[in-house]
């Protein structure tokens, strides 16, 4: 069934049809959200929030862009809002991540140093300017083509290319001299 037809049927009251959309896009939305929050449980909660928001505002979808573009735009905004709300929890989650028990294959020192390194990488990604970060996450975590990233961000493809280049440079700078 075409997405527009499916959306119309959902708007006509066939709520169960929304499950088809959720199943089709949940993995993509989850990956985008993971790019922002880096934690499975948080990403699942936010993914759920994204789909509930999408359902609530489905009537405002006018079909000018594809459904996925509209959905991913909402996913980015909900993730950013959630990050604002959860800023207070950051310190606790960082500590909790570091205090997690080692997996057993590596020595505790190795495990701790890897965790610290990953945490450093995540911080570098999180510290990117908002647009660079958005372009980076959409193109690297969801592997979207630049054309689609441009549509989601409402900028030109050239601008996306520039944002990705600058993001790469910024990451290198931050990780060379942390």
């Amino acid at each position, binding site marked *: 069934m075409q997405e527009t037809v499916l959306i119309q049927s959902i708007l006509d009251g066939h709520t*169960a049809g929304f499950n088809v959309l*959720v199943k089709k896009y949940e993995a993509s939305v989850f990956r985008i959200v993971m*790019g922002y929050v880096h934690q499975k449980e948080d990403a699942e909660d936010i993914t*759920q929030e994204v789909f509930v928001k999408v359902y609530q505002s489905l009537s405002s979808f006018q079909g000018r862009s594809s459904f996925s573009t509209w959905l991913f735009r909402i996913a980015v905004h909900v993730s950013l809002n959630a990050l604002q709300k959860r800023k207070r929890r950051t310190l606790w989650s960082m500590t909790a991540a570091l205090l997690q028990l080692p997996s057993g294959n590596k020595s505790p020192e190795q495990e701790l140093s890897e965790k610290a390194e990953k945490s450093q990488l995540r911080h570098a990604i999180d510290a990117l300017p908002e647009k660079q970060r958005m372009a980076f996450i959409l193109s690297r975590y969801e592997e979207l083509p630049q054309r689609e990233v441009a549509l989601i961000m409402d900028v030109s493809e050239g601008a996306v290319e520039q944002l990705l280049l600058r993001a790469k440079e910024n*990451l*290198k700078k931050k*990780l060379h001299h942390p």
Partner: protein
Amino acid sequence: MKKETDIENRIDELIREERETAMNPYLSTRVMATIAAQQEQKARPVFQVLKPVLALASLIFVVWLGITAGNGYSSGNTEEAFVLSNDAASEQFAFYLQTEKEE
């Protein structure tokens, strides 16, 4: 200073790891349950307004039913039937009269 390729590899590794994080297989069920719960909650205020109205209507109906049933009642007992129905009592009187005679 760290090598550029090393940094890129570490970033790629982190992204690959996060991309491959397994999602809860019941996430869609959770989403649909949340939507259903929200719809139910939306419908509830109407019911909450209607609840006292329904309770009052039920009470009025029960009272009306009682009055109507009471008004419509006819015993159907004639005077003869009433006398006959008291036979049991008469027999008891006879019993007492009999015991007095014995004394």
